[in-house]
C-alpha cells in the first residue's frame, strides 16, 4: 500500500503557497482553476481460487487538481488525492515553475517522476485504459512515484515546421529510501525524519529522452533513475532503474509497451527486478474500445514472479467519462497457481 504522507512536508507548503499567490493575483489576466478526476469501482477478487471470492465497492480516486498561471511566466500546480473513499489522503504533486525560456521549463517542488510514460502521463483513471497499473509499475518502479526536487523539461522541434520533436526531462530529487534489500514500493516518502537522520545524503538523479513523430503517431523514449537508497552499516547501496517505452497510434488503433529494470545493490546479494507490459486498444466510433494487455514481473527468486493477461472493454459516455470492464487472469511462474483472477467494473470521469 502506498505510504500516506497526509498534509505535511514541503509539498503541502508549496501547494498552500501557490494557492495564496494565485488567488492574490489578477484571475482574469492569469487565473487558477480546479479540476480533477474520480472513479467508482465494483471489484470481484480471488475468482476461481480456493478461498472465497470477495466483492466490494471502492471510490478508488477522487483527486483534486489545482492549475494556476500566476504572474507572467510563473505557473504552479498541485494535486490532492483522496483514495479509497478518503482512507488515503496524500499530496500527489505540488510544484511551481517558470516558462520564460523558449522550449524550456524549470519546476521546483514535489512532482511525479518523469520516468517512462505510465508513471507520469498515463496512470490517472480517466486516462488509463485499464483499471489498474501494469506489472513493472508497482513492485519494481513504484508508480505513482512523486518526489521533491528540481525538474527541467521541454521539447525541441526537429524541423522549423514542427510535427516531430525531441523531448527531454532531467530531474534531481531526494530519492527513494529504505532498508537494505527491501521492497522498492515501500521506499517512497518525504517525511522530515529522513531529512534529519543522516541516512539519505545521496540524492537521486535521472531523466527521460524521447522522440515523437506526431504525423506518424509514433513515439519512443528511454528513461533512467539512479541514487543510493540506503547507507545502512555505512555501505552505500545504489538503486538504478532503466526504462524504455514506445507507442504507435493509427485510426483509433493504439499499441504501447514499456519495460523497466531495477538493479538494487544489497549486502547479502544484489537484486535484479524486471517487468513491463504491452497493450493494444482499438477505439470504435469514439465509443467502444476493447483493450488487451499483457504484463509480467520477474523478481529475485520466483515466488513473486507473475504474468497477467488483462481483457478490457471501455465505453466512453463522453470525452470526459468512461465505463471500464476489466478481467485479469493471473498466473504465477513459481510452479503453483493461486487462481487469484479478478474482475473490475469502473466508472471514471474527469472534471
Amino acid at each position, binding site marked *: 500500500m502506498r505510504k500516506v504522507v497526509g498534509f505535511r512536508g514541503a509539498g503541502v507548503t508549496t501547494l498552500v503557497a501557490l494557492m495564496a499567490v494565485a488567488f492574490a493575483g489578477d484571475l482574469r489576466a492569469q*487565473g487558477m482553476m480546479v479540476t480533477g478526476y474520480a472513479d467508482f469501482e465494483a471489484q470481484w477478487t480471488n475468482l476461481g481460487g480456493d478461498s472465497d471470492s470477495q466483492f466490494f465497492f471502492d471510490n478508488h480516486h477522487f483527486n483534486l487538481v489545482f*492549475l494556476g498561471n500566476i504572474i507572467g511566466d510563473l505557473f504552479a500546480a498541485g494535486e490532492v488525492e483522496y483514495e479509497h473513499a478518503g482512507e488515503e489522503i496524500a499530496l500527489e504533486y505540488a510544484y511551481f515553475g517558470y516558462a520564460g525560456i523558449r522550449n524550456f521549463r524549470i519546476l521546483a517542488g514535489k512532482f511525479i517522476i518523469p520516468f517512462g510514460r505510465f508513471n507520469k502521463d498515463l496512470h490517472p483513471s480517466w486516462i488509463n485504459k485499464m483499471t489498474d497499473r501494469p506489472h513493472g509499475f508497482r513492485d519494481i518502479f513504484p508508480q505513482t512515484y512523486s518526489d521533491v526536487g528540481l525538474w527541467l523539461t521541454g521539447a525541441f522541434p526537429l524541423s522549423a515546421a*514542427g510535427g516531430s520533436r525531441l523531448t527531454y526531462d532531467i530531474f534531481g530529487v531526494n530519492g527513494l529510501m529504505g532498508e537494505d534489500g527491501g521492497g522498492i514500493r515501500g521506499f517512497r516518502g518525504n517525511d522530515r525524519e529522513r531529512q534529519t537522520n543522516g541516512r539519505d545524503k545521496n540524492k537521486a538523479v535521472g531523466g527521460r529522452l*524521447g522522440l515523437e513523430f506526431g504525423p*506518424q503517431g509514433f513515439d519512443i523514449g*528511454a528513461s533512467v533513475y539512479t541514487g543510493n537508497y540506503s547507507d545502512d552499516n555505512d555501505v552505500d547501496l545504489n538503486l538504478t532503474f532503466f526504462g524504455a517505452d514506445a507507442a504507435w497510434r493509427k485510426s483509433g488503433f493504439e499499441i504501447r509497451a514499456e519495460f523497466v529494470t531495477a538493479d538494487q545493490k544489497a549486502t547479502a546479494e544484489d537484486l535484479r527486478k524486471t517487468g513491463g507490459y504491452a497493450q493494444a486498444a482499438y477505439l470504435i*466510433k469514439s465509443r467502444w474500445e476493447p483493450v488487451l494487455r499483457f504484463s509480467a514481473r520477474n523478481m529475485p527468486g520466483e515466488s513473486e514472479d507473475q504474468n497477467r493477461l488483462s481483457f478490457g472493454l471501455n465505453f466512453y459516455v463522453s*470525452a470526459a467519462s468512461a465505463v471500464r470492464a476489466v478481467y485479469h487472469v493471473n498466473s504465477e511462474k513459481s510452479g503453483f497457481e493461486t487462481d487469484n483472477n479478478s474482475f473490475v467494473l469502473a466508472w471514471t470521469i474527469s472534471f
Partner: protein
Amino acid sequence: MRGFKKLLLAGAVVAVLFPASLAAQRSGAQAWAESCGNCHINQPPNRYKAERWAIIMRHMQIYARLTDAETEAILEFLQAGARQPESAEAKQDEGVQLASGDPAYLPVSSSTGEQIYKNQCVACHGKKGKGDGPAAVALNPRPSNLTDAGRMQELTDDELRKVIAEGTGSMPGFESILKPDELEAVLEYIRQFTAAED
C-alpha cells in the same frame, strides 16, 4: 549505462528514418489531434472557456512534452472553438442559452450551422468542406469530401445525422457536444456545399 546508450542511438536512427515528418506543416488542429490524443480522448474545444484553455495548455505542455510553437498553435485552435462567456451581457448579445449542467454542450443555442461548422468541423473537413482541413493529414481514413455531390446525394439526411451524432472512422461522434437543433443546423450547412452544384 550501456543499455541506455543503445536506446539513445536507436532513437537517433529512428529520427533519420522519418524524414518526411520533419517537413510536415503542423497546425493547431493537427497538434491537438495527434498530441492530446496520445494520452487521452481528445477533449472538444468547447469543453472550457478560452481563459481556462490558457491555463490548461501551460500545464499540459509539460505532460504532452510539446514545443512552445505547438502549444501556442493548439491553444489558438482550442480557444477558437471555446465556450462563450457566460456573462448576462454576452448571453443577451448572442442569444445564448446555456445548457445547464453539461459543459460539453455548445453554449450558443442560436448558433448558425456555419458557426458550428467552423468550431467543430473545419479542422478536419476544411473551410470549403473538401476534407482538406489542417487535421486531415493526421487522420486515417481521411475526412470525407463534403463537396462530392455524388457521394453526398447517396446519403440521406438520417444517415448524415447518424454520422454526425455517432461518428465514423476517425471522426468522433458529436451527440454529446451538439444539441439536436445544433446538429440540424450543421447538417443544413453541410448540405449547402453541394446544393450550389445541383
